[in-house]
């Protein structure tokens, strides 16, 4: 099944939390830990949005973004950049390379969810994982919505 979101993040704890909150918001997620694997995964099955950390091993998130924008197949693929350096220069670089959005660590979980929602719209309610919908629980609970 085509994933909604490809998460590219090498820090295990952050990756776990992103997977959880985005899945909890109702999206299908796929995760990789480096840029090379990200490009492979996108080539095989492009997601609806890529959540891309900048500081990756070997190939930075900016390098991955540059590659995506140079390819006609992925030129318009929405990419949300995550960075630990909220400096103006990184923001300008992201904009210059064609990033669709920019979130600075440390972030509130709602920031990431809202940013993704702005790029691809809300997740279908029926797609929410079962663990978030115990019997009788309102769909309004949880990290988002």
């Amino acid at each position: 099944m085509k994933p909604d979101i490809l998460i590219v993040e090498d820090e295990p704890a952050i990756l776990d939390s992103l997977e959880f909150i985005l899945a909890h918001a109702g999206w299908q997620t796929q995760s990789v830990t480096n840029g090379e694997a990200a490009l492979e995964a996108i080539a095989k099955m492009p997601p609806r949005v890529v959540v891309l950390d900048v500081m990756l091993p070997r190939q930075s998130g900016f390098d991955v973004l540059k590659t995506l924008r140079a390819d006609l197949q992925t030129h318009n693929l929405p990419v949300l950049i995550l960075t630990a350096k909220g400096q103006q220069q990184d923001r300008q670089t992201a904009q210059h390379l064609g990033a669709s959005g920019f979130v600075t660590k440390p972030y509130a979980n709602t920031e990431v969810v809202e940013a993704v929602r702005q790029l691809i719209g809300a997740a279908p309610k029926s797609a929410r994982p079962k663990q978030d919908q115990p019997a009788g629980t309102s769909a309004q609970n949880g990290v988002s919505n």
Partner: protein
Amino acid sequence: MRAPIGLRIRNYRKTKGLTQSGLARSVFISPSYLNLIEANKREVGGTLLQHIAAELEVDLNDLTGESEQRLISELEEAFSDPLFETLNLGLKDAHQLVAQLPQLARALHTCFRGYLEAIAAASAISNRLKSDPLFSQLLHQMLSQITAVRSLAEILRDVPDINPEQRQSFYSSIFDESLALSQVAKSLIAQFDHEVEQNRSITPLRELNDLIIGEDNYFPHLEEAASQLHAELSGAQNQPENPAPLSEELLTRFLGVQFGVRVDLNVDAGAKDKQGAAQFGYEEDSKRLWFRSSTTAAERRFQLARRLAILGAGARLEQLCQDPRLTTPEARTQAFSAMASYFAGALLFPYDSFLADAENALYDLDFLAQKYTASFEQIAHRLVTLRRPGAAGVAFGFLRADPAGHLTKQFPLPGLLMPNAGHACPLWAIYTSFRTPNRVARQSVSFADGSRYLFIAKTSSKRVASFAEQPVLSSVMLACELVYADKTVYGQSLKLDDPELDIPVGPSCRLCVRHDCAHRHEAVASASSASFL
């Protein structure tokens, strides 16, 4: 700028309740002459000054105001900082503050030093944060770990029905990330501390200078120990007034017999890669002291004496380095090195005989260098240390510069404002001597306040350069008040009584009030200095 010694004598006399005629009688001068001294219209020094100090029961340094003069110079330099720009403070204000409120002046100086240190630390941290990959990496790690902890904590707070296995996994991750975050924070703090230490404005060198100046560059215990060792080495126990010079062979033999040190000369071909550009070196493990063939005889002799100082008087040197004025290991290390060199100088140029030779030769440094098989710099350095109370030579200040003009070593002369770092006035002989290497350049100079000095400088090379090697040049300068110039060979042919013939100079462009000087390369630090004129 001269210390107002006459005013100080008058103040102390009045404090003791002595009349002018009473004090004059005690020191065997006329009341009218004492009156001229107190009005700063006559110089006073030497034995007369010592007698006056004794009659007034004050320390000679307090009477001459040497420590106060240094404070005045430091405050003048502080007032030129942009921090005080709008206050229009200058030399007159520094004088007044030191004279009327000396404790407050010292407090202000201490605060300014603290301010410089804080600025230097903040600047260092800012620069390193911007450019250092280690800091950048540490900060990135911290932010990533904080992100993980925050995000996971939010999940645990906001998702009450999370399955137990996942909840436990997230708790473990929070714990692990918090632990890692603590380690990174400690590393970052340690790195900050290291940076602050490295960028302190109160550098180890400045602490060492404070110690040396505080002791007037005279260390009696080292002199005594060096004198005893000299007697032992030269077998001149019965002729202390005419000790024989110590030859290179004697020093080498003594090092070998007493300490098992092997001396290798002419270490050259094939050794360059190992030793690099150094002229000499000491290998602790093998106790081997080696010299290149290009090392001068003066340098070899000095380094042999220095090694003797470290091995034979190491404990005494270490004791000196425990002085509370040296607050860091780096300062104590530099002090040890400086004291070892002091000891070597005292050993090679015994105090009494060297002072006698210096006075007989009218402080002709080239003559003394030849007599003692020493370099110009070594002789100059020894002359500056001839400060034994009651048996002192002419008071000299010492300065050394590299060909780029940077001041690399100094020992100040009270009253003569020398920059702590950077460049001095481009007209000083220390720079003009580079144009005529191996020849002594001399000049009589006048500062804007009317003070006059004799400057003597020579540029020389520390090694015997071959055609293939660039000579390593440095310029060494001695300075003394012009009133003592006639005691030197350099002042003999100068017209010392005509200030119009002096070269008009300043301490440095930043602190100089001669706005129309054609050699100025930097603006005056503040307009306040003009108030002095």
